[in-house]
């Protein structure tokens, strides 16, 4: 029998409540498409460049265009310690999973031998940065006029001391008095497909299934927010 010690969340949210979100599109004028997505104290900029010529040439695909994502935490984005600039094992992994989370929706068949570059830069991080990055990248790709089947909503679910929770922040991820599992996920509603699922920690099957349902619901909410932000760019100024 597990003792349920985590009865109230540290920041007072409900167990299935998201942190406050702001989303904006077209924040980087030089990029073809760009977006800023902020959830709680985690903020992500995404800039899309391309389709453009791809180098090195061996990466070219003559059948369709290539999507290339790059995830980077800014040096001052952490909780105090300077994040060492440049690629790390972690940022390489997150670049890869971001790419794979977005790949099922983008269609680059019209652009053989070219590349669409997505740069995700995090200016502040407080857990859930890869999910924030995917949300920002999803909006930026749409803003860049790339053909997409749907938008992608990404959120983390997890276990804090036996309790299934949505959208963990850093305090919860670092919770000392019980076991914590962190499961970032990305969901594409129109295909009913999960395009990102990682797990840090142990989680039971029942809890995972419960969490995934929670996450799917939240992903749909996130997509509504993305839609609103994309449409806000075209509102007629009065």
């Amino acid at each position, binding site marked *: 029998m597990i003792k349920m010690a985590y009865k109230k969340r540290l920041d007072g949210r409900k167990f299935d409540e998201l942190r406050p979100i702001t989303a904006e599109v077209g924040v980087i004028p030089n990029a*073809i*498409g760009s977006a800023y997505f902020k959830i709680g104290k985690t903020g992500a900029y995404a800039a899309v460049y391309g389709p453009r010529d791809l180098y090195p040439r061996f990466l070219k695909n003559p059948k369709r265009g290539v999507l290339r994502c790059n995830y980077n935490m800014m040096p001052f984005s952490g909780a105090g310690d300077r994040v060492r600039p440049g690629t790390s094992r972690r940022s390489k992994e997150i670049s890869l999973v971001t790419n794979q989370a977005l790949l099922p929706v983008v269609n680059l068949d*019209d652009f053989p*031998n070219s590349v669409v570059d997505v740069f995700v830069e995090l200016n502040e991080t407080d857990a859930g940065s890869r999910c924030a990055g995917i949300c920002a990248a999803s909006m930026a790709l749409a803003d860049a006029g790339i*053909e997409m*089947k749907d*938008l992608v909503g990404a959120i983390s679910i997890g276990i804090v001391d036996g309790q299934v929770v949505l959208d963990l922040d850093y305090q919860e991820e670092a919770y000392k008095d019980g076991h914590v599992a962190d499961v970032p996920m990305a969901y594409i509603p129109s295909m009913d497909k999960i395009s990102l699922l990682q797990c840090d920690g142990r989680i039971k099957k029942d809890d995972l299934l419960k969490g995934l349902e929670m996450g799917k619901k939240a992903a749909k909410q996130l*997509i509504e927010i993305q839609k609103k932000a994309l449409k806000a760019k075209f509102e007629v100024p009065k």
Partner: protein
Amino acid sequence: MEKGKLLIKDKEVVVPGEVLAQGMSYLPSQGTYRKGNDVIASKLGLARVEGNVVKIIPVSGRYLPKKGDVIIAKVTDINIAGWTVDTNSAYRAMLSMKDATSDFIRRGSDLTRYFDIDDYMVTKIFNVTSQNLVDLTMKGPGLKKLEGGRIMTVSPSKVPRIIGKQGSMVSMIKQATSCNIIVGQNGVVFVKGINPEDEILTVKTIKKIEEESHVAGLTDKIKEFLDKKSKKR
């Protein structure tokens, strides 16, 4: 057949993944796709309903070379058979010697006499292959090397708005500023006036059109803007 249901209004802004219409009586066109019973948007843009065909006019995106388009391109390299030019798209284009001029060019002669690196030209796309290899030609009315003036780039999806219906917008700007304006389908615009002030006003006006291209009644607004500016001078 069962009557379908339209879920959006004409000229409404739609985002990828948004369901535009339900039922098999609506047909997906440019920028949309069918999934089961639904017609869904696959691009960010303005939805247009024409009869029972639903399509999207994109509001952003890079230029994709198309056969027959007149574009403004820049020479990036000179090779044995001709010139490599930048088309402001994902693909560069080739302008071969035989399509560039009707002059006889002796083997090994200096090609910079015709086009040097960094020269701009108005040119026409006469062939695009499945792998988007682009061939250009200089043979046709209005196709020439550009001298003087200034170059600006706009989003290619805004080009129809800058030109206007039967060129109404661009001719209005030409009249007000007495500048020569050439708009390439790839979003590169060439502006040449008698004095730099005219050119600056033209560039400003085109930027304004680009920013407000989705606003209704744009022509009147731009006319007002031009009147005000030309009175000031």
